[in-house]
């Protein structure tokens, strides 16, 4: 998607926890409306990088802008424009489907009348009308995950950050999930997604492969496969990761 401006831009972005460098001078750009995949093994620094961009962690050095705003000085403004779905489950189990949507819409400051409209439309769209007044704890994981995503985009953010959104979900739900992501991107929202499922890279416009806190490779999946002479992304990953496995955790 050319010439639509940049959504995210980083330069030598670094995060250190004491001696340990979780994210090591990463530089990349994400265009508006792009689905940008952040791939890598567990502990490669994906979540840390994402959390810096969301204003949850402040970087040790380097620079980054999100939606044109500086992560050091304007993190509060960034939060207005992004949606975030965390690795951990972010819905409240003792609230109903409706209440969860109302809550997240509410704290993002969506005007009440509009919120009701969006909420009901969203419930309809997700096919959750039957269970809208049931507590979350009774729902299957796949539904919860989709709902979780909905809460992150209900306020129509410019960029949505998804941290391992498909962890532990069955293949069919994963597909549906990626359809939702595609729809979201088609409407102009930038999607920044981390995953350790290499096959999901195929859904992304571009990916960056993180190894040991560094970006080992970046580009469209087709060109990466060509570059490393691999049949699929798994092979690309093994190619990149094997020489230097690291044991530390994030």
């Amino acid at each position: 998607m050319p010439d639509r401006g940049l959504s995210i831009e980083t330069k030598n972005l670094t995060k250190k926890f004491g001696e340990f460098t979780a994210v090591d001078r990463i530089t990349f750009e994400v265009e508006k409306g792009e689905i940008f995949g952040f791939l890598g093994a567990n502990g490669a620094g994906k979540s840390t990088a994402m959390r810096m961009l969301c204003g949850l962690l402040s970087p040790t050095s380097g620079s980054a802008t999100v939606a044109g705003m500086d992560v050091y000085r304007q993190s509060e403004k960034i939060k207005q424009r992004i949606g975030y779905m965390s690795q951990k489950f972010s819905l409240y189990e003792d609230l109903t489907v409706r209440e969860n949507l109302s809550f997240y819409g509410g704290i993002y400051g969506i005007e009440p009348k509009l919120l009701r409209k969006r909420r009901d439309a969203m419930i309809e769209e997700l096919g959750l009308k039957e269970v809208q007044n049931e507590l979350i704890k009774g729902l299957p994981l796949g539904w919860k995950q989709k709902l979780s995503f909905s809460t992150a985009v209900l306020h129509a953010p410019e960029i949505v950050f998804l941290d391992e959104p498909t962890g532990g979900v069955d293949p069919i739900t994963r597909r549906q999930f990626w359809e939702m992501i595609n729809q979201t991107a088609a409407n102009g929202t930038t999607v920044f997604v981390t995953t350790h499922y290499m096959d999901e890279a195929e859904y992304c416009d571009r990916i960056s492969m993180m190894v040991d806190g560094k970006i080992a490779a970046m580009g469209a999946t087709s060109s990466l496969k060509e570059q490393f002479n691999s049949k699929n992304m798994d092979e690309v990953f093994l190619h990149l990761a094997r020489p230097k496995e690291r044991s530390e955790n994030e």
Partner: protein
Amino acid sequence: MRFFSILRGQRKGAKMNRLRAFIKKEFYHIIRDWRTLIILIGMPMAQIILFGFAITNEVNEAKIGILDKAKDEESRNIINKIDASSYLDITEYLSTDEEIEKVFKKGNVKEIIVFPADFGRDLWANNQADIQVVSDATDPNTADLIFNYTRAIILNHLNEMNANIESPFQIEINQQMLYNPALKGVYLFVPGLITVILMLISAMMTSISITKEKELGTMEVLLATPMAPVQVVLAKVIPYLLLAFIDAVLVLLLGYFVFDVPIRGSLVLLLFETLVFIVTALSLGVFISTRTSSQQVALMISLMLLMLPTILLSGFIFPIENMPNPLQIISNIVPARWFVIILKGIMLKGLGIAAIWEETLILIGFIVFFIALSVKNYKIRLT
């Protein structure tokens, strides 16, 4: 799938709506967790009723001793009256002052009535005489009750004597407290109970409720929203402020109507001070939640660091004056201590703000201190 067409329209909204949405959610949590809610509302009621009946517990056949140094007609008359009462039971007759201590140490006798050697003579000569009542005040409530019965019996007898007489007799009854001279009044239980309950609900419940969000991982999502951390904390705290306030009012009402605990001072002032203490406890709860990220730890800290000092060092059960010096010093940093003084002052002594402004300021000082500490910790956690 026309998933994203849903999301057209306005983007930003008012700040108040955010806070309201959040507080609403907190109320859902509280109401859905109805077991905890029942405990929070029911426990104070149960406690006040338990304590209430301990307070009004009738004394039956309380064992007392007599040290009659006069051995005259008048003293014997009174002793007979006391012996005839169903409330008091004379089990020991003493002959010297030295025996008083010995009898008390055996532990059965709660009170000893001492008639001075010239009791009858004084009464006839001066129309006036003294009786000394020595009480074992280790259990102040019982001691007070027994003393009141004793006095009632003696005064009753005096009234009978004075029925047809021009110049009436007078008997001065001097009470001497052994072991607990300050004799904490029975009504102190209600102020103490309010203090403990407010501490429990405000500090413990908020610290648990905030750490719960951390534990579940929802706190991270909340921090990625435009909700300022202050708003998050405020929204978490407000429902418990309300709940704690309702509890305080319930205990006051029960105390007042069922057990006749007086509220001699201004009700408005009382409610205001209650609010100040609730906020103190809430800020403590918030502070605890910044130091820990697990509900278990928050619970343990609340119990160890708040509940025990609140019960033991606030002067609620054990008089501060009677504590060893180090404990007296430590009691100064227990917020409950100051609130107990305030409550006692307003409820029992009818004091106004002029008499308790210092204690109020100390509580406000605690609030500022804990909030400042929380803010500092919060920053550290975010970087």
